[in-house]
């Protein structure tokens, strides 16, 4: 029961976060939201793993956490000089995070 409650909460949270991801307004809001969504996914995988009695899902959760982190770093690294739809200042240093 507690797992189900937790998973329900995570799903609700996911929906809330998704609305932010869709609303933006800046690309950074979206990145933040996607990152949070990733964290929630890690949580969901773990909870569902318990719920279904398949703890091997935890490996998957860990992998997901890793990819979430690296993905966020990569996107923030590229966002500054790629200017995905938002004005960047001339002084921005491409290599900098």
């Amino acid at each position: 029961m507690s797992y189900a409650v937790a998973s329900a909460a995570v799903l609700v949270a996911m929906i809330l976060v998704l609305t932010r991801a869709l609303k933006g307004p800046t690309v950074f809001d979206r990145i933040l939201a996607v990152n949070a969504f990733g964290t929630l996914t890690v949580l969901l995988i773990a909870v569902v793993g318990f719920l279904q009695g398949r703890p091997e899902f935890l490996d998957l959760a860990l992998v997901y956490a890793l990819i979430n982190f690296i993905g966020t770093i990569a996107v923030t690294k590229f966002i500054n000089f790629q200017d995905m739809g938002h004005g960047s200042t001339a002084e921005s240093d491409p290599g900098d995070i």
Partner: protein
Amino acid sequence: MPAVDPFYLDILTWLFVIPGCVLLIIGCIGMITLPDVFARMHGAGIIDTLGLELILVGLMFQAGSWIVAVKLALILAFVFFTSPTATHALARACLGAGVTPKVDDQQSAALSRRGRS
């Protein structure tokens, strides 16, 4: 794992999971209601810290084997290290792109513009 009455473990789990869920939802609401991306990072912070932690700790009581508990701990540790790092990187990226925080007073407004130096 030491043999403990599952009933107490369940109680413990509930004690952790419910606050965790509440914080999770609050953090998400924060991500929606807070004024700008910097402020929303604090909402995300709630999710990444107590929201996640409480639920995972709650699950640990149900682990049933050391190995599962250890894996949960590893996830916790990993998020513990990476989540602030990612948030920090994102904040830097915002400043790098010229997105400055909405702030309440003049001094910090000036600071925020210099913040990326």
